[in-house]
């Protein structure tokens, strides 16, 4: 039985978080879930960044004066992660405020519904026929209606 190193677990966790986040963005339809999935993916990326400079045998990179020189953790990725967390928070706040505005205009948080009404709006403004969706054949689809739409 090979012991699993903690580093491996952390790397797998970071990549897993990114994958979960991307899957959430792609698969969910509710705007709030999509934004939360984006937050999760960003957390994964940040964790990956921290891990890229971390060393288990080292101490925190603070020079305390006196004492023998010791191996320190690389401080650069930690500074970068702080920056990227701050950027992330800003972008998320912007996303929420845009969500509020879009909700105010269309009264829905379902991204497909939002997109449908948006293209209807744009087509109406331009005076063109509504773009026909390839997902919706004209004759209706021969499948039972999906359950739990618009959760």
């Amino acid at each position, binding site marked *: 039985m090979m012991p699993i190193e903690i580093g491996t677990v952390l790397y797998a966790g970071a990549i897993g978080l*990114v994958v979960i*986040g*991307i899957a959430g*963005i792609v698969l969910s339809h509710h*705007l709030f879930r*999509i*934004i939360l999935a*984006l937050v999760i*993916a*960003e957390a*994964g*990326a*940040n964790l*990956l*960044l921290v*891990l*890229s*400079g971390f060393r288990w045998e080292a101490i925190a990179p603070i020079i305390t004066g006196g004492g023998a020189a010791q191996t320190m953790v*690389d401080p*650069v*990725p930690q500074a*970068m992660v702080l*920056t*990227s967390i701050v*950027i992330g928070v*800003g*972008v998320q706040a*912007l*996303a929420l405020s*845009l*969500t509020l*505005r*879009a909700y*105010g*205009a*269309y009264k829905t948080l379902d*991204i497909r519904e*939002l*997109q449908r*009404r*948006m*293209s209807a*709006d*744009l*087509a109406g*403004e*331009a*005076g*063109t*026929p509504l*773009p026909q969706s390839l997902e919706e054949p004209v004759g209706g689809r021969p499948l039972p209606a999906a359950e739990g739409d618009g959760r």
Partner: protein
Amino acid sequence: MNTIALTVVLPLLAAFVVPVLSRVSPLLGRLLGPLTLAYTILLTLQVWLGMEGKPFSIALGGFQPPLGINFYVDRLSLLFTFLTLVTSLLLWPWRNETEPRQYALTLLLAASACGLALSGDLFNIYVFYELISVASFGLAAATRSGAAFAASLRYLILSGLGSVLVLCGIAIVYLQTGTLNLAQLSQLAPETLNTPLGMSAFALILLGIGVKGELFPVNSWVPEVYAAASSRVSGLLAGLVSKLAVLVIVRLLVLLFQQESALQLMLILGLLGAISGELAAWRAKDMNRMLAFSSIGQLGVIFIAFSIPGETGLFAGLALSLHHLLVKPALFLLAERWRGSLAGLRGAGLASPVAGGLFVLLALSLVGMPPLPGFWAKFLLFTGLAAQQSVVYQVALGVVLLSIVIEANYLFRVVMNLFQPAGDSSVAVTTDHSWLNLGTTFLLSALLIAGMLFMGPLGTWLEGVAIQAADPVLYFDTVFSVSAIH
């Protein structure tokens, strides 16, 4: 020489001063932005004349490069700084008297775009890239219609996904090399990044930054945003921001990822973008959507050009980028009064012949009619592609030719429509182009004609720019030379 940093600092400062100043004095608030941009353009020209074609690097805050962040100034980055400032000034939102926020966002975009062009540090590039993103979300939503909010929200989500990918790519690069300074990376890359892991880092960064560059799988935001945003913003995003994303990718390709597989990945994505964009534009029923899709197609062609190895690729790609940067905003400005369905434009060219004539000129250059600059750019691309041995490049040659045929078909269809006498059934077309838009378009077209007249010296000069930018050894030597100290 250090004044080049002011091209980032001054617009950034002005961006935060404008909203406050507009409350005190609306006139000063309106003038501050254009004045700042004009002054920074002068500064850029001054540096340009001072550098005498030799690249130099400045260490910000006095911290020397491997530890501190540096700006790398060669002809390519200075050219893009200059173009950024000029394009932002040309596409300045003059008419929004009531909206100082839009001035601030445009200035923010200009500042971060200059930073992106100049920066010599990978993480610094990421930060500027995010700043550009935030500014462009704000600008895309500035028309304040429901569609604009929804479109920029979808843009934001895709862009957020892109920055996660870029961050992962940066983490991999740092893990493999332990540095983020591009010059140092260029030295370490042949040993450390020439691996499958390095390749995956490139793929992540390419996809992430490609969101802004309208790269194939991550460009679904393009038609919605350009249809919902104002023409000036669409011109800015399609003309300028996409080129800066391409510039970053090209820098990384030259300095970090010289593997053949990296070039081929970009080539294939570019091919898919070119063909899908042109086909969608062919199907489009309204002006803005058609221009948006055709912009995806042309960016695909630009990616194809940059994936040719060596200076040839850089030269062809630069020529195509400059041409697109000139033509696309002009077309978007013309489309401001002609937005709406293409069928409704019947006779619009007869009603305003100047605008119709300009449209024909721009469309001809976009397709690549021989004496116009668009032809020379595409000619460079073809000779570059034909010189390559690999089958993929030969396929690319065919696909680019096909895309030109499609492009010619839909653009000439519009031109035919513009100059057909309007039937009595057609709705009254609004043809009164504002003088501001028409003037700007006229200026851009005049530049196009000037480019045609001085094609010889322009080509030689651009080739010089490409040769200088394609040299990673020069980059390293410049950053770590004694001249970096002052």
